[in-house]
Structures are given as C-alpha cells and as structure tokens.
C-alpha cells in the first residue's frame, strides 16, 4: 500500500514544484500519472522513491515512512542507467544481496527470460539496443521483488513498436509478483494500456487534477470501442488540465456558475 499524504515540494529559490499531493495506491494496482511538461511528475516520483525530500507532507509504503531509498521501492528511470562495466546479468542482479548465490542467479535468469533477453546475460550493456537496455533496467528493478515500483517515462525514448512489446513484458513481470506500479507517462495510449487508474496532473504548482478509472479487463485490445472510449476520457481530462478556464483568475460569480 502506497500512501502520499499532503505532499508539497518547494525549492530553495521559492519555486513551488508540488502542492498538497494526496494519492494512494492499493497493492497490485497500476496507476499512471499523466500531464504536461513541468507539472512535477518526475519530482513526485523522486520524492516517493526517497531520492529527494518533500517540504511538507509524507510518503508511506506499507506503513513505513519513506525518507530515503527503501528496499521495498524499486525505480526505473527515463534512461536505462545500466552500469557499463557490468555484464547484463550482473546489472540485473545489482540490487540483490544476502540471498545466496544460487538464489540470486535463479532470480536473474528468470527476470532475463521474462524480458526476452535470456541469451544476452553475458553481453555488455553497450552491445544492446536502447529498447533492450531498458528491458534490462526493468528486470533489474523487478528482481529484488519491490512492493512499489516507480517508472519515470521508461519508454519515452523508444519507438512505438518497441514500446508495445515492452508493455506486454512489463505486465508479464507485474503479474508474477503484483507490486503497486506508479508510472509517469505523457502517452495517453500507454496510460490506458497499462493502468487501472489514470491521474492527470496540472502544472504551476504541480498538483493532482482529476482521476480517470480504466475498468477494462487485461489483456486490453487497443482497437476495441471501450479502449477508445477510455482514451477519449483521458484525453478530455488532459485537455481540461492543459487549457485552464481563463475566468479562474478573476472569477466573477455568474461566469463561474455558467462555465462548465
């Protein structure tokens, strides 16, 4: 269970990046965070990961307050961030410790198989394509079996074809251990394909604007009417967050009443 309670972040120069974020995600739930650039998606993820501290409010995972990186929280960054001096298999096993060699190896092998890179364990990261590298990064994040997994636009640098394959592999890995997943994306299709719930954020300061529930069974068919309808609902919510009503700044009572 992930709980974000009235979380705010103000930088030293006075810029308010996040304002009063409240969010909770159940075990096994996949939540997508979507919004225009500069709305604090990445900042929020970094706070939940414990990489940065909030100015006010708190983050808790399974009842434990997060102040620094936590063994139950895994992260996949926008870039693969593989360690170039380790083989693919050693990268996947990087976060494992204290399990014993055979257990480590079994987990690494299993994760590499699930992302379709079983043959590549002994290669160097530089020998893999961008999509393959990101699959290694995802395998690395899953291997310690985190309860919460944070993904920061993990597929944004990849082409649409590669991205679709990665969605399937991500869901496959997720199905095996059912962690809570919080994924930042700017791709509406990606959000609808993966998430149980899409949370739309609005910038300046970053805050949660609206939540769209995606009640579709998995695997999801991207050409079905219900899928398209969900995409339209998320699009509409995103539109509302990107084009705020002008009247808001100086709300005359009659305008406020008649706006929607």
């Amino acid at each position: 269970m992930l709980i974000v309670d009235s979380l705010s972040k103000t930088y030293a120069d006075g810029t308010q990046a996040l304002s009063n974020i409240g969010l909770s995600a159940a075990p096994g739930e996949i939540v997508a965070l979507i919004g225009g650039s500069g709305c604090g998606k990445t900042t929020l993820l970094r706070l939940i990961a414990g990489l940065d501290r909030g100015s006010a409010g708190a983050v808790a995972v399974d009842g434990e307050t997060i102040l620094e990186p936590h063994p139950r929280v895994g992260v996949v960054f926008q870039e693969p961030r593989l360690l170039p001096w380790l083989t693919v298999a050693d990268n996947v096993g990087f976060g494992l410790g204290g399990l014993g060699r055979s257990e480590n190896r079994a987990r690494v092998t299993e994760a590499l198989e699930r992302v379709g890179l079983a043959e590549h364990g002994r290669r160097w990261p530089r020998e893999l394509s961008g999509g393959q590298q990101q699959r290694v990064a995802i395998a690395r994040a899953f291997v310690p079996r985190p309860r919460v997994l944070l993904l920061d636009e993990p597929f944004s640098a990849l082409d649409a074809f590669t991205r679709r394959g990665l969605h399937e592999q991500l869901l496959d890995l997720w199905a095996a251990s059912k962690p809570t997943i919080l994924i930042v994306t700017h791709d509406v299709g990606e959000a609808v394909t993966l998430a149980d719930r899409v949370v739309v954020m609005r910038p300046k300061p970053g805050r949660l604007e609206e939540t769209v529930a995606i009640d579709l069974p998995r695997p999801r068919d991207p050409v079905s009417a219900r899928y398209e309808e969900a995409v339209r609902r998320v699009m509409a919510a995103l539109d509302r967050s990107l084009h705020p009503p002008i009247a808001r700044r100086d709300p005359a009572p009659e305008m406020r009443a008649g706006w929607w």
Partner: protein
Amino acid sequence: MPVLRQGGRFGLGVGLALALPIALAVGWEIAVDTGAASGRLLPPPSRIGATLFELAASGDLLSHVEATLIRAGLGFLGGAAAGILMGTAVAMLPLVRRICDPSLQALRAVPSLAWVPLFILWFGILETPKILLIAVGVFFPVYVGVSGAIGSVDRKLVEVGRIYRLSRLAMARRILLPAVLPATLVGLRTGLGLGFLFVVAAELMGASEGLGYLLVDGQQLGKPDQILAAIIAFALAGKLADTLFVVLTRPLTRWQDTVRESL
C-alpha cells in the same frame, strides 16, 4: 577471409611505416660504405648495431637498462601513488580542493626540469633527487586525470547506487572506482611515458650507471654510436613498458566502447 584481409592490411601498414626509416638506414649505410660520407658523427646502422651487440654481450647494457628501469619504476610508483591520493582527496573534499588545487595547478605550470638545481642542492646528486624528479613528472598527469575523473562521474549512476542503498564504501567500490578507472589508466599511462622522459633528465644530472649515463659518456668520449645505441635502448624500454601497461590493464576496461580497443 576477413581476418586474413585484416591481417594483410596490418602487414601493409607495418611495411609502409617501416619503409622510410629502413630506406634512410640502408641509404646511409651505402653512403658510408662507398666513402661518400665519413660516418664519424653519424655512424652507419651496422656500427650502431655492433656497439649495441657489444654492450649487450658484455652485460653492461643489461645493468644500465636495469638501473634506468629501477629509477623510472620507483619514480613512477611514488608519483602515481601521490597523484591518486591527492587527486582523490581534492575531488572528494571541497575544502581540500579549495586549499590545494590552485597551488598544485600553479606548480604544474613549472617545467619539471626547473626543479633540478634545487633538488641537487637539497638532496645531493645520488638517487633521491633523480627519483623525486621522475615522481614529480609522473604526479601531475595522474593527479589531473584522477581528480577530473572523480569530478565527472555520472550523477545518474550514483543515483542507481542510492536506490539500492549502497553504503559509502560499497558506493566507492561498485560505482565510483569502476567509473574513474578508464581516465585513471589514461593518466597513469601518460605518467609512465613522462617517467621515461624524466629518467633521462635525471640521469643527465650525473650518474655512474643507467642509459642516461651512456648518453653523457658517449658525448664526452666522442662515441656517437654509443649515444645512438643508448637512444635505441631507451626507445625499446619505453615502448616495452607502455605495451606491458596496456596489455596488463586492458582486461579492466574491456567494457568500454572506445577506439582504444582498435589501437
């Protein structure tokens, strides 16, 4: 088949590279042989070869090479160790950087040979000033390489270490050390080359053995063949040390995708 062709191209490259020196050597040999040139100041290759062989046969060459290698080696070890320590301290501790780096950068601008008179005054003309001079020459490229490498470690990779809650020691061993290794090795290799440069200068200070002594001795006794033999021995020893360094450290940076692999 491609391997063969590659081998052939390599052979061709070596052949082209050797064509000019071989042509000059053969030309000079013929010129002296036919009496067109005296070869008194620039002896023909056959005489240099004979001198080299004589020196080698008597065991003198080996003892001179040994003396030079010991000096260069000790100076390299001292300079490299100091460079790694100082470079690490300056990169990791901001206060040390602000206090030490400006002075070290100023000292770096001093040509190392300028220290020779001072070192002789301070330490006499025996081994200490020689090894110290070599160490000073080796220190700076290693220092600059190490401090620069640590300062430019990718913050994003350090963050990966933070996500997996590495201790300070584990962070140093598993992230920082491998990340700075390539630049450190480049610094050490440059330092090794400079060590050979300075061992000559050090031995010119006055030595009773070593390849530098052979140079001075050849000059004073008017034996250009001995000077050239010593120069050839220097070239071989330096090249050998450099090749040895590259071969020994290559496994450490095998993961790198750089042109060095093809060198």
